[in-house]
C-alpha cells in the first residue's frame, strides 16, 4: 500500500504533544513525591520489630503490586464518587499513581534499609542517639543514597505509566497523540514522534539521575 511519510501534520500540533509531556511529568512528580512518603512509612513498618506493622506493610505492597494501575485509576475516578469522594481527573489519577508508586517504593526503601551496615546503627546508638534520631539522621541518609538508582528507575516507570491517564481523558502525551492520530490519520508519524518524546524524556531523566548519583558518593 502507498504510504509516504509527512511529518508536517504532527509538527503542526507539536506544542500539544509537548504540553502533554509536561502534564505527564508533573503527574509523575506529584505521585512519586507522595509515593515516597508512603513508601518510607511502609518500609520502616516492614522492617519494624512489631508484627502487625510488618503485616500491614506487606499487605499494602502485595495488594497494590498485583492490581493493574488502570483498575486503581478507574476506581479512584469513577467509583469513589459513589461513596461521596469526588476528585477531578487530575487528583484521582495522581492519587492512584501515588498509591501505586508507594508500593514499589516500599520495596525500594526496604532494600535500602537492609543495605545500611549494622555497625553504623550500633555506633549511632552507642554515642547516645535515640532510636528516632538514629533513624532520621543516620539510617535515612545512607538508605536514601543507596536507594537512589532504584528510586530513579521507579520514577521513570511512573512517568511512563502516566500515559494511562489518557484513559480518563487527562490531556497528557498519549491522549494528545491519539487525538492527533484520529484527526490527521498520520498514524506512523504520530506514534513515532510520541514514542520518541517518551524515550527522549526517559533518557534525559536517566542522565540527570546519573549526575545526581555522582554528586553524592555511595556510602
Amino acid at each position: 500500500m502507498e504510504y509516504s511519510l509527512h511529518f508536517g501534520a504532527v509538527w503542526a500540533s507539536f506544542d500539544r504533544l509537548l504540553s502533554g509531556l509536561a502534564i505527564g511529568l508533573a503527574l509523575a512528580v506529584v505521585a512519586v513525591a507522595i509515593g515516597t512518603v508512603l513508601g518510607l512509612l511502609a518500609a520502616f513498618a516492614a522492617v519494624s520489630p512489631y508484627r502487625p506493622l510488618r503485616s500491614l506493610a506487606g499487605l499494602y505492597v502485595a495488594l497494590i503490586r498485583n492490581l493493574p494501575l488502570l483498575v486503581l485509576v478507574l476506581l479512584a475516578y469513577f467509583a469513589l464518587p459513589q461513596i461521596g469522594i469526588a476528585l477531578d481527573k487530575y487528583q484521582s489519577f495522581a492519587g492512584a499513581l501515588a498509591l501505586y508508586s508507594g508500593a514499589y517504593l516500599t520495596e525500594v526503601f526496604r532494600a535500602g534499609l537492609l543495605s545500611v551496615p549494622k555497625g553504623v546503627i550500633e555506633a549511632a546508638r552507642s554515642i547516645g542517639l535515640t532510636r528516632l534520631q538514629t533513624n532520621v539522621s543516620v539510617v535515612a541518609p545512607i538508605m536514601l543514597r543507596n536507594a537512589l538508582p532504584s528510586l530513579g528507575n521507579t520514577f521513570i516507570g511512573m512517568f511512563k505509566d502516566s500515559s494511562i491517564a489518557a484513559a480518563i481523558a487527562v490531556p497528557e502525551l498519549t491522549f494528545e497523540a491519539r487525538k492527533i492520530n484520529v484527526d490527521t490519520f498520520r498514524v506512523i508519524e504520530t506514534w513515532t514522534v510520541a514514542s520518541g518524546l517518551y524515550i527522549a524524556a526517559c533518557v534525559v531523566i536517566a542522565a540527570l539521575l546519573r549526575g545526581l548519583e555522582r554528586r553524592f558518593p555511595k556510602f
Partner: protein
Amino acid sequence: MQAFLDQLWIARWPLWDGLLLTAGIAAAAIAFGTLLGGIVGVQLAYAPWWLRLPFRLYVDIMRGTPVLVLILAAFYIPAVAGLSLGPTEAGTLALTLFAGAHIGELLRGSLQAIPPGQAEAGRSIGLTFPQLLAYVLLPQAARSALPPWINTGVELIKGSSLLSIIGVGELLLRTQEVIGRTFMTIQFYIFAGIVYLVINIALDQLGKSLERRVGQH
C-alpha cells in the same frame, strides 16, 4: 450486597469470558515473548557489536515507550501498512513485543552473570557454541532469570487490562460493560480487582514453588 450478587450471577458468563481472554492474551504474550526474548538475550550477550546494535535498539525503544503507547501504535499502524489485525491480535502483538524486550534484557543479565570459567570449561572439552549455549549457559541463566520472568508474567496480566482501551473484551472491558448496565461501579471494579489479585498472587506463588524445586546452584 444481595443486589450485587444477583447482578454478578446474571453477568457471570461475560465476566468469565473476559477472564479467559485476559489469561489467554497474557499466556500468548509470555510464550511468544519468551521465544523472542530468548533470541534477543543471546544476541545481546554474545553477538558482535554490529549485530547487537539492532537488538539493543529494539530493547531500548520498547523499554522507553509506555505499554499503552505500544498498544495504541500496534492498533493503528498495521491498518495503514495494509495489514488487518483485530484489536485482540494487535494488543497481543504489542504485549509480546514488550515482553520480548524485557525478557531479552533480563536473560542478557543472567547470561553475563555466569562465571566465565563455565564457558571456558565447555570450550575446552570441545563443545561448539550452540552446544555450549544449550547444555551449559542457558540452563544456568534460566534458573537465575526465573523470578524476574514470573514477574514479567504478572506485569503482562496487569498490562492486558490496557487492551480494554482499544476495545478488546477482556476482563476489565467486560466489567465496564456490566457497570454500564448496573451502575454498581465500586462493587464491580473491586470485584475485578480481586480477580486480578487472585490470579497474580497465584502466579507469584507458582513461581516461588518452581524456584524452590529448581533450586539455586
